[in-house]
């Protein structure tokens, strides 16, 4: 080349070159080349399409849809800092910690934009920040923070539990189901005598059968009596079996609460585990009214969901009692005994 040519080329090399970038909303920005090239996606575009790409307004490089102008300027600020080679690791870290402080919505947009521009360090940075936000939150909280739709059905929320259920978990659920029913029954006891009397009647049966030595029969008779919903008949039978109901009631009550509770639990576990003891029409009736049953079912579902999502099931906790609290209208409260 002649000297004159060299003279012309030199100043051009000293001049900063710019790249033109266009976002999907149509706005075009002019950015120093070295900064823009820090983004792999832009780099590839320039190299692929030849040197002319992005060199003027007319042939600006179109950026992916997920990059809006606000995010672009943020990303370019990031690039502007980091593309300077002389900075120490500590400096970069300090800058990043400050840089990442923004509201959650912008953080999501930033992660999205950085991902589409394939700017890995920024993707890592924003992902870590988002992970810190998610950590320790309940599903409801996460939905609120990120404005996510609650588009899973109740069944689907329980599905993770079903898929991964080992036998111990099924057993625990059933045991707890039984325990809950027992607790509800005890609660009912406090409310009215009717349940008491049903319990009374069973315990008397147990006593009689024990005396007569026919355990197996008792289970069946008590179940067939469960089927029979005529409570008045029960009342009469009880009064026939006991000499003086009023005198004996207190003593029988005490034994009933201990015996009846056990026999309840026993018969309920039999309900759950063995299909043979089901009644002929396949309907498992343990004598509770359907409203209570529905309440229980919801409670258990809720608990099952928490079993999965709040890591209740550690083998150590299988043996400890689980405390539920139920409002009068059946709404459930958080389990307080199991806190991580």
């Amino acid at each position: 080349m002649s000297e004159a040519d060299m003279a012309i080329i030199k100043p051009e090399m000293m001049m900063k070159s710019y790249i033109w970038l266009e976002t999907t909303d149509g706005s075009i920005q002019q950015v120093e080349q070295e900064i823009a090239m820090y983004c792999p996606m832009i780099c590839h575009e320039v190299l692929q399409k030849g040197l002319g790409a992005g060199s003027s307004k007319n042939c600006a490089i179109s950026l992916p849809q997920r990059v809006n102008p606000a995010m672009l300027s943020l990303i370019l600020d990031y690039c502007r800092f980091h593309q300077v080679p002389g900075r120490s690791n500590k400096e970069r870290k300090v800058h990043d910690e400050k840089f990442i402080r923004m509201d959650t919505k912008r953080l999501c947009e930033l992660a999205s934009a950085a991902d589409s521009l394939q700017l890995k360090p920024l993707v890592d940075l924003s992902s870590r920040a988002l992970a810190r936000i998610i950590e320790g939150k309940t599903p409801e909280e996460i939905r609120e923070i990120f404005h996510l739709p609650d588009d899973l059905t109740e069944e689907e929320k329980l599905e993770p539990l079903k898929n991964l259920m080992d036998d111990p978990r099924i057993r625990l659920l059933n045991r707890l189901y039984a325990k809950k029913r027992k607790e509800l029954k005890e609660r009912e006891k406090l409310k009215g005598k009717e349940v008491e009397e049903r319990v009374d009647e069973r315990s008397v049966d147990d006593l009689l059968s024990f005396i007569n030595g026919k355990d197996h029969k008792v289970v069946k008779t008590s179940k067939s009596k469960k089927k029979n919903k005529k409570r008045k008949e029960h009342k009469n039978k009880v009064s026939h079996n006991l000499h003086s109901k009023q005198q004996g009631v207190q003593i029988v009550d005490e034994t009933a609460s201990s015996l009846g509770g056990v026999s309840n639990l026993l018969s309920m576990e039999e309900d759950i585990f063995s299909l043979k003891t089901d009644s002929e029409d396949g309907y498992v009736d343990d004598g509770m009214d359907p409203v209570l049953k529905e309440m229980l079912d919801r409670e258990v579902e809720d608990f099952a969901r928490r079993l999965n999502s709040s890591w209740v099931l550690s083998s150590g906790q299988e043996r400890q009692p689980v405390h539920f609290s139920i409002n009068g209208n059946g709404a459930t409260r958080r389990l307080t005994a199991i806190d991580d």
Partner: protein
Amino acid sequence: MNNLPEDCIAKILSLTSPRDVCRSSAVSRCFRSAADSDHVWNHFLPSEFPEDFRAPEGLPTKKHLFFSLVHNPLLLHDSQLSFSLERSTGNKCYMMAARALNITWGHDQRYWQWISLPDARFKEVAALKMVWWLDITGKINISLLSDDTLYAAYLVFKWNLDPYGFRQPVEASLVLAGTEHDDVQPSMVSLMHNPGSEQGQRAELRSDDWYEVQLGQFFKRRGDMGEIEMSLKETKRPFEKKGLIVHGIEIRPVLP
């Protein structure tokens, strides 16, 4: 968050913990899809498995593999070493069977018997008839464990009907590879509850109804090599010990 692609969400979730990921699968449809993805659970599974590890068959996803390893320890090394994962971090846990330990006089039927118990993880446990020199030692290669984790070793045991000689504390030690034996200062641990004479670590009841007592702690760094030696000894007092049933030595991460 709605406009983040699933693999971005998966990446973010893989930076949280297994517990958080499980919770996330109940947030929304797109979160669930990301939370159940193999990409996330692969991240929680160990990057290196022990040599003779074979993944159980019939597990459809990495998530299933993870929980299978958490709940169902795998038997390795000729069924003398059990391998499992700690569920909140995915760190590796091991338990060495009594047969894999070096029990002085363990081969002698007069002193130790090898019996099978239904609630034991391994085929045999060591039942102490009577011994004066109690020396139980186990060795494990530190490279089997997870990096950058604080571990503790526990002797897992229980009592037969009439144990004897364990009211006083006994010596426990945990020695890293390359340490001179003379430099080792054992700590005193109590196997039995004895108010007044208890020192240092005490035996605790486990969820599987065995007892455990901590023998020591150590931090595994990336690249650490060599064997760790864990032991329980009582060789100084001149009376016999009876009735100890040794299940093995368990090594698991210390949880905060």
